[in-house]
């Protein structure tokens, strides 16, 4: 078995990738893994590259606030 795996670089690469994919697929099936981002507590900056919708919504809110402020004029 060892001789077969270490016969040449290609067999070793294939075996490594099979083990790697085997572990990933097994874990994925057990845990039902989906593409997800763990959201840790971060009170300082609000950046999440996967949350473009949230970014757009926040920008719209900011623009609305600015428009309301402009309407009231300088006091």
């Amino acid at each position, binding site marked *: 078995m060892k001789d077969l795996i*270490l016969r*040449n*670089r290609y067999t*070793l*690469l294939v*075996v*490594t*990738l099979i*083990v*790697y*994919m085997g*572990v*990933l*697929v097994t*874990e*994925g*099936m057990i845990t039902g*893994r*989906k*593409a*997800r*981002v*763990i*959201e*840790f*507590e*971060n*009170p*300082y*900056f609000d*950046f*999440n*590259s*996967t949350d473009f919708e949230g970014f757009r919504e926040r920008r719209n809110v900011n623009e609305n606030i600015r428009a309301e402020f402009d309407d009231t004029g300088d006091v």
Partner: protein
Amino acid sequence: MDKFAVLQFYALLKREVLEHRNIFIGAPVVVALLLLVATIWVAMQIDQSQLAEGLLFVSVLFDGLSPFDMAPFIMLLAIPFYLTLYVCSVIYLINTLYQDRKEMSVLFWQSMPVSNLQTVLSKIVAIVLVAPIFYVLIIFAMYLIAMVWLTILGISNDVDLVGIGYLFLAAIASLVLIYISAVVTGLWLLPSVGWLLLFSAFAKKTPLLWAAGVLILVGFLEDFIFGTQFLANWVASQTSDPNQYLIFEFQSVFERVFNYDTLFGIVVGSILIAGAVFMRRFTD
């Protein structure tokens, strides 16, 4: 671990730093110089009185604030260094084992009393633990120059410098966060580290193309064979949000390191690193 093994490992780390000085020292020095030149250029465009007013504003802003609370905001200055470290790490990892075989120095190192495991581990430790030390030291030197300049500016314009002292303390606290963030990033991205090292040890030519090509191919194969996309999901989960591995508070270090995804990533990365260690025996 005996003293000889420690000395061996230290020698291997020293070799990595000496052979890759451009990546460990040159690149961050260039970034720091560019930032300093840019800052001086901007300062020259501003009137001296406005500069003094700005300094007074910063001094009042930071006066009395906890350096640990303000450190995350100072960390923003390190973004160019993070990006540089990220790019340099990819270049280093994909080339390091490939270069050894290309210039045949692998034969010399294999004739020495060091194992392939020690060599590969030294490369991982060099980029995950040692490289950030150099980056942090260079950022510290940059902060020091900036502080001396601000102090001279403050004294010449009669500005109270207590707030600048707090700013300096916040900058020092941010250096610790920058280092911890860089190390946690290395652990979080260990599967990527292992993948790049595996193809660095495997490819006879263009290791980066092999690494990218096989990743795409294996993703398609998984979809064809199992009808699942766990590899794509895994890559997307690990790489899409830097918030998962950047540290902004000292309290959050434990939860970032000892969570399921990081630990599973270390296990999966170890498989690929083991592959790279065994692959190193093929020296042709």
